[in-house]
């Protein structure tokens, strides 16, 4: 990545942070926070985005940010009151700003109409505020959107001027303020000398006698004759910083015209454009000694100012302290690839350590031996390193949660409901891949909570609830996993209605006896949707089954609990990383396999009476009153020709992503442990039914089953609904 691309990336990262700040600030203001620092932070966020966007010529972003910022500035200067209506516009503007940032980053299209409408709205707010505060058209209109560094256009094409001018006569009388602001006559003269041939004269006529001399005063006038092809604009530009702190006359001299004699001593032209500050100009000896003492930095002792400017020895000091103060960056940025490589290597380390431990055990060394003790310490260290490395990839869920508050906002606008999103545990960290892949299911659940969960203000009022509903989004670490909960204080699941819909859609028989929990879980069945009319809010025509599938794909589980009249809670439990997996290590025909723990519903040791033949070669097992097809893993993977007898073996009841239940027959359960996932595809090739591989402590490769494709390839899975039908029928 070249430097500019890297800075551009930094800019977008920073934009994300600024958008976060912006949202947090606006929400705080919406809650009644009147702290000026909050308003300032909000303003700064937009201002910063504008500044960076300008640097990368993201004109549309600049234009919107500018209008947004102008209105925020009116709030900051208390010309515009941050009323709920105004804040609503601000929050919507923040959303559009976020869209524009995203569009700039990914070259996506943006909703131009929405942006233009908001620009108009923002300008409307600004002009109302300006009218109210008695200003005519201030703000957005008055401030020119001028991002051309006009005063720096030395190298630019000269503007239309008088090309026949051969030079200029400049009369320059500095005032004391000029020096107080760090400007210097000598530097200006030097710059003039760069533009062409100069002759400089110093008029000391106003210089008082020593006893009347104010050391911080300015008494000299400089007359410069400059021969140059530059236009007058370039000269004005050179004096731009000092124009308010001096008297300045610039007169063009025509070619051939004679200039009037300078009033003071004429000095020879300066050839060297780099005079030292101690000898600024080749003026007469007297003047050259006086000028810096009087006209230069007034704070310095006269002789010192001439002999050694203070900055010189300060610079020396800086040299000795070089490196002490650098960028105060508390973070470093690292390529994701490097982190992943590190994670892989640590994975190898974990495997190697496990192998070593096993070898030592097999060698018959006592646990108390020094080798075993050392190995114990190594194991501890390895685990710490693994956790440390995983933590590098970990990210707080905060940005994800912030996105949800926007969704709630848009939904409340669309539904007319009043809903507040409360978030908890935003600092909870989880692997960035998990964060990224959580966005869609979480969005869907939040939409559901607002659309189906929370009631309209009227209904709420009638139920004796506050008119504003609340959706709570929380994250927490629980026993090595992250648990994310979405709960609402709405009406809860309408179980009679869910039941009725399920019957109508023939998902369950009309006379099915279901527990509350079973009814709630009907929501996860494919094709189930409680919306009586097609809503454009709760998603893309998909139901909670898609959410469940996405969560399961992440190795997670989802559950519902609901109390009628008090609301519902959806709880998701996810692994902290996708690099390791909680697996059940099983033996099948002398082979070792790993089954993801999240897919396993229960394990059984079936009795003979549980197993029933179905047709010629199929068998099913009674499972909680229903039947699940039996699949012999060994036979399916080609380890044996005939299926093993499940009686005497172990059966793992698994549930796939598409909610089919199957009973997998294995010979024995060996262990339950965390395994490091090694890609089979990268090292061998893709195998249907196999997700990946891992290396066991004895150095052998164990395949990790992909329950979903494994069941699909056997083609014997029964839809969960059928199991449920069997269970209840």
């Amino acid at each position: 990545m070249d430097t500019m691309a890297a800075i551009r990336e930094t800019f977008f990262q920073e934009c994300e942070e600024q958008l976060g700040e912006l949202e947090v600030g606006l929400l705080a203001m919406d809650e009644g926070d009147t702290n000026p620092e909050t308003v300032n932070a909000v303003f700064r966020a937009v201002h910063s985005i504008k500044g960076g966007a300008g640097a990368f010529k993201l004109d549309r972003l600049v234009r919107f940010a500018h209008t947004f910022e102008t209105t925020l500035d009116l709030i900051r200067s208390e010309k515009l009151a941050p009323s709920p209506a105004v804040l609503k516009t601000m929050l919507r503007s923040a959303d559009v700003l976020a869209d524009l940032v995203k569009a700039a980053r990914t070259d996506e299209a943006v909703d131009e109409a929405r942006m233009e409408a908001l620009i108009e709205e923002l300008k409307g707010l600004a002009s109302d505020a300006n009218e109210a505060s008695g200003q005519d058209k201030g703000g957005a209109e008055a401030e020119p959107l001028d991002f051309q560094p006009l005063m720096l256009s030395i190298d630019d094409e000269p503007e239309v001027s008088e090309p026949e001018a051969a030079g200029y006569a400049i009369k320059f009388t500095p005032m004391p303020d000029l020096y107080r602001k760090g400007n210097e006559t000598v530097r200006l003269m030097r710059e003039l000398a760069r533009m062409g041939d100069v002759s400089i004269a110093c008029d000391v006529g106003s210089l008082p006698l020593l006893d009347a001399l104010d050391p911080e005063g300015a008494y000299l006038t400089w007359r410069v004759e400059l021969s140059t092809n530059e236009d007058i604009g370039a000269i004005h530009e050179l004096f731009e910083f000092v124009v308010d702190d001096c008297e300045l006359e610039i007169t063009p001299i025509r070619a051939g015209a004679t200039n009037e004699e300078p009033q003071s001593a004429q000095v020879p032209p300066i050839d060297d454009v780099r005079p030292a500050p101690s000898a600024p100009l080749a003026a007469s000896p007297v003047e050259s000694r006086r000028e810096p003492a009087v006209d230069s930095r007034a704070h310095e002792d006269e002789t010192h100012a001439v002999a050694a400017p203070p900055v010189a020895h300060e610079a020396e000091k800086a040299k000795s302290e070089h490196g002490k103060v650098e960028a105060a960056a508390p973070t470093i940025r690292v390529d994701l690839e490097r982190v992943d490589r590190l994670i892989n290597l640590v994975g190898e380390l974990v495997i190697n350590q496990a192998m070593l431990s096993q070898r030592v055990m097999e060698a018959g060394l006592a646990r108390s031996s020094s080798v075993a003790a050392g190995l114990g310490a190594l194991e501890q260290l390895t685990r710490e390193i693994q956790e440390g490395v995983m933590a590098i990839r970990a990210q707080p869920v905060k940005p994800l949660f912030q996105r949800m508050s926007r969704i709630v906002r848009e939904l409340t606008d669309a539904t007319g409901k009043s809903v507040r999103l409360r978030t908890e545990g935003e600092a909870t960290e989880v692997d960035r891949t998990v964060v990224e892949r959580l966005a869609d299911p979480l969005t869907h659940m939040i939409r559901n909570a607002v659309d189906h969960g929370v009631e309209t203000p009227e209904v709420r009022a009638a139920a004796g609830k506050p008119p504003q509903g609340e959706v709570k989004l929380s994250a927490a670490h629980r026993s090595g996993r992250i648990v994310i909960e979405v709960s609402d204080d709405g009406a809860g699941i309408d179980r009679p209605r869910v039941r009725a819909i399920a019957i109508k859609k023939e998902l369950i028989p009309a006379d099915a006896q279901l527990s509350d929990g079973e009814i709630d879980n009907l929501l996860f069945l494919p094709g189930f949707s409680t919306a009586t009319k097609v809503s454009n809010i709760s998603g893309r025509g998909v139901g909670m089954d898609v959410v469940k599938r996405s969560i399961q794909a992440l190795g997670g589980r989802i559950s519902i609990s609901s109390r009628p009249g008090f609301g519902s809670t959806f709880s998701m439990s996810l692994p902290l990383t996708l690099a390791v997996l909680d697996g059940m290590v099983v033996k099948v025909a002398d082979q070792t396999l790993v089954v993801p723990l999240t897919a396993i519903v229960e394990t059984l040791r079936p009795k003979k009476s549980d197993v029933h033949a179905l047709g010629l070669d199929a068998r099913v097992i009674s499972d909680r009153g229903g039947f699940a097809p039996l699949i012999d893993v060994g036979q399916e993977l080609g380890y044996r020709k005939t299926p093993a007898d499940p009686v005497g073996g172990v059966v793992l009841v698994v549930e796939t992503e598409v909610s089919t239940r199957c009973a997998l027959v294995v010979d024995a359960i060996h262990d339950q442990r965390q395994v490091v996932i090694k890609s089979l595809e990268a090292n061998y090739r893709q195998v249907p039914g196999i997700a990946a591989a891992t290396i066991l402590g004895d150095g052998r490769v164990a395949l990790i089953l992909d329950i979903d494709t494994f069941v699909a390839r056997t083609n014997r899975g029964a839809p969960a609904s059928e199991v449920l039908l069997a269970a209840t029928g």
Partner: protein
Amino acid sequence: MSMTILTVDDSRTMRDMLKVALTEAGYRVVQAVDGMHGLEVLMQEAPRVIITDINMPKLDGFGFIERVRGNQKFLGVPILVLTTESSVEKKNLARRAGATGWIVKPFDSVKLVDVVRRVAA
């Protein structure tokens, strides 16, 4: 010994851009993330030029310039403000606070270095 320049900006993007442009031009760059931090850095460094943003948390650019100018030690150090506004008001405020000059964002590196050279002793 290359000339040291202090840049004060809360935006990482801006700090990076300034650093790249100034370092390429042969300056040594020290950075601060806000006005307060800028004052701290000044305790340890003696930059020949200071470039500061205006809108910053903790201590903004105007406050920072006033505090720098209030210290005899830094009275003559040129201070350039970075501003996205070309409005006269902002420039005057900066001038009043004691700024030597200004750089309008966005800047290109040639022009940035040009302005720095113009004010640097």
